[in-house]
């Protein structure tokens, strides 16, 4: 059974160029195609006609690398809950449906081209403190550190973040709180993460503010858009950690840089 979609796609030749929606007719599709395979087909046709294909980020196509991310009819990653764009299939759409495709929209994510945006702000948030400073070597036996199963499971729930940026794109404030809080929760739930816990939250929150991300006002769109269904409970946890660390107030608030 073939399908037909009417696309309206954001085209923007470069970061400073003006962008606009362009309509494309996409006939002869299959319901079993993934959304990105549909874009592949459209691009093949564009190239054959000598036109520039639609630029979009993608890589693993199995929902784990976090490269892909499109606003589909105004919803980050499209209509299927808990699913990254690459794992969305055309069976989630009606034959003949109009589909509007846009890049992530956020001041902190400038458009590079068409549907490709610059998400390096997320890397800088991690570089500000989203780690445990364990140098290679000189660490104890893995079973010398016990972790209660519930804590390990909760840490894993938070660590499942793929860094796609859907939370930012879905948030009316373009806040990166869910992203930052997920890492803070992952590391803060583990005994290994305790020594740097206060420093981590202060630095990461500070970096988030230095980037052009907005603040969290508990709207909850982020958890709805998250392809890994990370809960906003982690944000409450981050706020608690932040408050405690601020009251103890021993850590300077510094940012980070280092992109080459």
């Amino acid at each position, binding site marked *: 059974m073939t399908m037909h979609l009417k696309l309206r796609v954001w085209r923007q030749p470069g970061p400073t160029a003006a962008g606009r929606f362009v309509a494309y007719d996409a006939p002869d599709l299959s319901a079993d195609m993934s959304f990105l395979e549909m874009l592949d087909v459209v691009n093949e046709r564009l190239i054959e006609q000598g036109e520039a294909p639609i630029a979009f980020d993608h890589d693993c196509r199995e929902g784990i690398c976090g490269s892909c991310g499109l606003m589909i009819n105004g919803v980050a990653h499209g209509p299927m809950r808990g699913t990254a764009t690459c794992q969305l299939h055309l069976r989630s759409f009606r034959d003949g449906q109009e589909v509007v495709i846009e890049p992530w929209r956020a001041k902190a994510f400038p458009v590079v081209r068409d549907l490709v945006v610059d998400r390096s702000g997320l890397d800088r948030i991690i570089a500000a403190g989203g780690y445990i400073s364990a140098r*290679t070597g000189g660490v104890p036996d893995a079973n010398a550190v016990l972790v209660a199963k519930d804590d390990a499971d909760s840490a894993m729930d938070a660590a499942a973040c793929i860094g796609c940026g859907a939370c930012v794109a879905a948030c009316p404030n373009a806040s990166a709180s869910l992203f930052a809080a997920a890492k803070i929760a992952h590391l803060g739930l583990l005994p290994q993460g305790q020594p740097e816990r206060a420093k981590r939250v202060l630095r990461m929150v500070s970096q988030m503010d230095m980037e052009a991300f907005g603040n969290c006002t508990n709207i909850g769109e982020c958890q709805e858009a998250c392809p890994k269904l990370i809960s906003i409970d982690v944000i409450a946890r981050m706020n608690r950690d932040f408050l405690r660390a601020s009251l103890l107030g021993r850590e300077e608030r510094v940012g980070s840089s280092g992109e080459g």
Partner: protein
Amino acid sequence: MELRARTPAGPLAEKWDRHRFEMKLVNPANKRRYKVLVVGSGLAGASAAASLAELGYQVSCFCFQDSPRRAHSIAAQGGINAAKNYQNDGDSIWRLFYDTIKGGDFRAREANVYRLAQISVDIIDQCVAQGVPFAREYSGYLANRSFGGAQVSRTFYARGQTGQQLLLGAYQALCKEIARGTVLMYPRTEMLDLILIDGRCRGMVTRNLVTGEVAAHVADAVVLATGGYGNVFYLSTNARGSNVTATFRAWKRGAAFGNPCFTQIHPTCIPVSGDYQSKLTLMSESLRNDGRVWVPKRAGDTRPPHEIPEAERDYYLERKYPSFGNLSPRDIASRAAKEACDDGRGVGPGGRGVYLDFADAITRLGRQTIEERYGNLFEMYQRITDEDPYRVPMRIYPAVHYTMGGLWVDYDLMSTIPGLHVLGEANFSDHGANRLGASALMQGLADGYFIIPVTIGDYLATAKLDKVSADHPEVRGALEGVARKTKRLLSIGGSRTVDSFHRELGALMWDKCGMARTAHGLGEALRRIPEIRAEFWENVTVPGSDAELNQALEKANRVADFLEFAELMCRDALHREESCGGHFREEHQTPDGEAKRDDERFAYVAAWEYAGEGAEPVLHREPLVFENVQLAQRSYK
């Protein structure tokens, strides 16, 4: 070209220790004078870049993705092996070493594999210290599961996302160094050539994928950790961007390529559903812990699975390999699936599929346990196929997954070009002709965290490296070469897309150089590949310019390399007149259809040297000497 493996003397268990003692060290204060370029930010690249920076070297790290966290190691599902013997089930460093050598069908170097098994235990310690949320028992201790090719439980895992968690651990360690200013990170940047001066690798040429800027980077050493070349088949479980370009261009600069024909076909992937398909999705091998593989006994049986009674099902892995059963190694399980489908007993559309059935496990353990173990994999399967694997058995089929072949390296992980080191899947070293499950993550991290930080010091301390100026003729020459190639790709203006060539090449390779190979088929491929390549250079169309984000141009560059590299693979497969591991030559099999090695003639690493445009590559042989294990026909019966 001389292949000097530099394997240390002495008893197997003491080689690495002794070697570490004998190597020259770089004084801590001098390390900052050395600059090292690391290409790739997967498990091997990120762990190497972070560890080298911690030691004090100046490091630059490059990846083509928009963030180093997206390298394809992230997609590894099942787990990582380590000889911890936490289960008290008889594991040891020796057993992991032996399983890996045997699993690789005796085509890997003993000393390298033994070192890998030794280091495996340190990796788990390191990852736990970084906060990798491995699965735990209720006691708080680490949990383990079993994987193919082993009869002990030594695989550590983080749900079905082990690669993701290990990579994020390495990525975070890398970010820590980026923040300290000790690593300069270059995302969306691709390596397109090496710079050789006085026979040593002294840098490379890159293209910035956003601006198109082509730049030279000079350094004291280069580390390639650029992954495998499975995408030569077009369809594989690799990420779409995974490519051979870095290693292939290093080959053209004089690095020998080891065993290019050794590719791994993973038995449990979701079958192909249409010709628009862009990639194949793996279903973790860990599923074979509880899933049972079967096909109908009768050819052409089209009844739905629940209507096929027990007596009319063939659980062929359990039948043929009773002691390993559904956990037989990957090459064996893949071939068995192909055989069943070739017999007309395959299931699903097109008949290229077998069942992986969890009904017994769900009855025995309950749905909740299965959900805990494999929940995310079941969801992924359902999203892709629209079928519920809790109710209907999964349909799976083998797909290209990993490449054991890669640039030849010595014991220090240095290629035949001095100063060029190669880590992880990009090198040929540890897995022989077949890799066991959960061993890729182990090797990537062993190379990056624990081997290269030591061995590169010995190179830097002993090589006499003069300062290289940025306008050295070799630097200018490499820059010009890259620019010329890009211009040429953009100027062809033909009528076929890059992808159409890639698909054509992939179909040919899968057919002639895939799960079963023959001299006849490989000969045909060797005739056909130059024809496809010639048409590519006459009739491909690459829109846009070189001064912008141009994804079609990126692909064209990579596919152009695949079109040459495919020939090297087929040549290697044709010359290896034996079957071993993932390399199955139909002419060489036992009466019951198992791979038949020829140790007399082929117990060596085939290392191919580039001999110039249009010339046949030159074969060099590194004999494999087994002093500690007895070569035997691999049996999993």
